[in-house]
C-alpha cells in the first residue's frame, strides 16, 4: 500500500474549482457531473480527456456550447481507450523528441461504451500498459439511446430491451464483472467509486496520480430517468447501493485488494430495489426468487472480496 500522504478527510478540503461548468444538458439529478467535477479537481494539469459517445458526451458539447474547460476529445463510441492510448503515446513521444509536456490522459465511457462495445479497446489499452486513467460511469443501461439493456444491467432490471414481461421478468442475465476483468489485466490500480461517498471517491482519484500505467475506476452513476426513480434521490440510492452490498467500495493495487468502506450490518437488498421503478416487478410473488438470487449474489461477492483482502 502507498502511504496516504495526500489524503483528504472532509469534503471541505476538496478545492473550489469547476472545470466542468453549468449549462450542460444532462438530466436533472444525473450522477455523472458529480464524478466529473471531482475528477477534474483531483487530477492535475496538464490533462486531456477522451469521452466515448454517450450521455455525457452528447449533453456537454452541443455545438457551439461546451461545458469543458479542459482539452476534451470525442471520436466515437467504442474507442475511448484507443484514442486515449494515441494521445498518451503522442505526448510521450513529443516529450522525448521535442521537450513537450507529458499529459494526464483520462478516458471516460459509460457502461455501454466500456462493458460492451468498448471492451476490446479497453483491454488492448490495459494490456499495452499506457499511462492513463480510464473511468467507466456505470448507469447500468444505454441511457443515451433510451434505456436499452447493457452488459452492466443487473439481473432482473427492466429496460426497454429487457422489459418486465409476463414470461421474462426483466434482464435474465447477470451483470458482467467488469472490475474482475480489469484486474485480470494486472493493472497497477483499480477502484470502485460511489457519489454518496465523496471523500472515499476523492482520495481514490488522488491516488491515481501516484501510479504509472493504466488506472481504472468503476463509478456508480445514478440515473433517475433510466431507473424510474426520483431525481432528488440519486445520492440516497447510491448510498443504499453501498449499504446493501450492491456496490462494494474497494480498491486493488497491483492485485492486492482492500475494502475502503466497510459495511458491518448490511441492509436487505429490498431497501435498495424498492427505490427504483426498474425493479418494481420483482416484488410480485412469482418473481421473489430474483430478489433472493440478487441478495445471495451480493453477499457472496462481499464474502469473496473479504477473502481477497486477506490474500
Amino acid at each position, binding site marked *: 500500500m502507498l502511504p496516504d500522504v495526500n489524503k483528504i478527510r472532509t*469534503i*471541505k478540503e*476538496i478545492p*473550489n474549482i*469547476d472545470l*466542468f*461548468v*453549468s*449549462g*450542460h*444538458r*444532462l*438530466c*436533472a*439529478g*444525473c*450522477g*455523472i*457531473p*458529480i464524478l466529473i*467535477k471531482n475528477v477534474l479537481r483531483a487530477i492535475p494539469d496538464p490533462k486531456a480527456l477522451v469521452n466515448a459517445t454517450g450521455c455525457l458526451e452528447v449533453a*456537454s*458539447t*452541443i*455545438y*457551439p*456550447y*461546451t*461545458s*469543458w*474547460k*479542459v482539452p476534451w476529445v470525442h471520436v466515437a463510441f467504442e474507442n475511448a481507450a484507443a484514442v486515449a492510448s494515441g494521445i498518451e503515446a503522442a505526448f510521450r513521444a513529443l516529450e522525448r523528441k521535442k521537450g513537450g509536456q507529458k499529459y494526464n490522459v483520462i478516458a471516460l465511457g459509460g457502461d455501454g461504451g466500456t462493458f460492451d462495445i468498448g471492451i476490446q479497446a479497453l483491454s488492448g489499452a490495459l494490456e499495452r500498459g499506457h499511462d492513463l486513467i480510464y473511468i467507466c460511469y456505470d448507469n447500468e443501461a444505454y441511457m443515451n439511446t433510451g434505456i436499452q439493456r447493457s452488459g452492466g444491467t443487473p439481473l432482473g432490471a427492466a429496460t426497454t430491451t429487457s422489459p418486465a414481461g409476463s414470461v421474462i421478468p426483466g434482464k435474465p442475465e447477470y451483470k458482467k464483472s467488469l472490475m474482475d476483468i480489469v484486474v485480470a489485466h494486472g493493472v497497477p490500480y483499480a477502484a470502485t467509486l460511489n*457519489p454518496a461517498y*465523496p471523500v472515499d471517491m476523492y482520495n481514490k482519484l488522488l491516488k491515481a496520480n501516484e501510479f504509472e500505467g493504466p488506472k481504472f475506476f468503476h463509478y456508480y452513476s445514478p440515473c*433517475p430517468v433510466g431507473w424510474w426513480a*426520483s*431525481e*432528488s*434521490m*440519486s*445520492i*440516497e440510492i447510491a448510498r443504499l447501493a453501498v449499504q446493501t452490498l450492491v456496490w462494494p467500495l474497494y480498491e486493488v493495487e497491483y492485485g492486492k485488494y482492500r475494502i475502503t468502506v466497510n459495511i458491518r450490518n448490511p441492509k436487505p437488498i429490498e431497501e435498495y430495489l424498492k427505490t427504483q421503478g426498474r425493479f418494481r416487478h420483482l416484488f410480485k410473488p412469482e418473481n421473489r426468487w430474483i430478489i433472493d438470487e440478487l441478495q445471495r449474489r451480493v453477499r457472496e461477492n462481499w464474502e469473496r472480496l473479504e477473502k481477497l483482502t486477506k490474500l
Partner: protein
Amino acid sequence: MSSWPRDWRELPMAGIINIAGSSLDYKTGTWRARKPVLYPDKCIKCQICWLFCPDMAINRLEDDSVEINYEYCKGCGICAEECPTKAIEMVEEVG
C-alpha cells in the same frame, strides 16, 4: 451564443469549440419545475449541497457559505434531500 459565426467560412475548423466553458451561455434554469430555497440561518456550511449539485448551480463562497444560482439550477432537489439541517427546501416554481 449570439456571437458565434453563422457563415461556414468563419467557423473554427473541424467543428472545434474554441471557447472553453461556453455552455455558461446556455441557461438551464428554465428547465426547473420546483425550486430550492436556502435558509442561511440553518446552513452549517458543510458543502454537501455544493458537492452534490449536478449542475454546479450552488456557488461556494469564500467564507464557505453557499448561494443558489437559479440561472442553471434544474430543480432536481438533491441539495434539499441531502442537506443535514434541512436548510434547503423545494417549493413550486411560481410564474
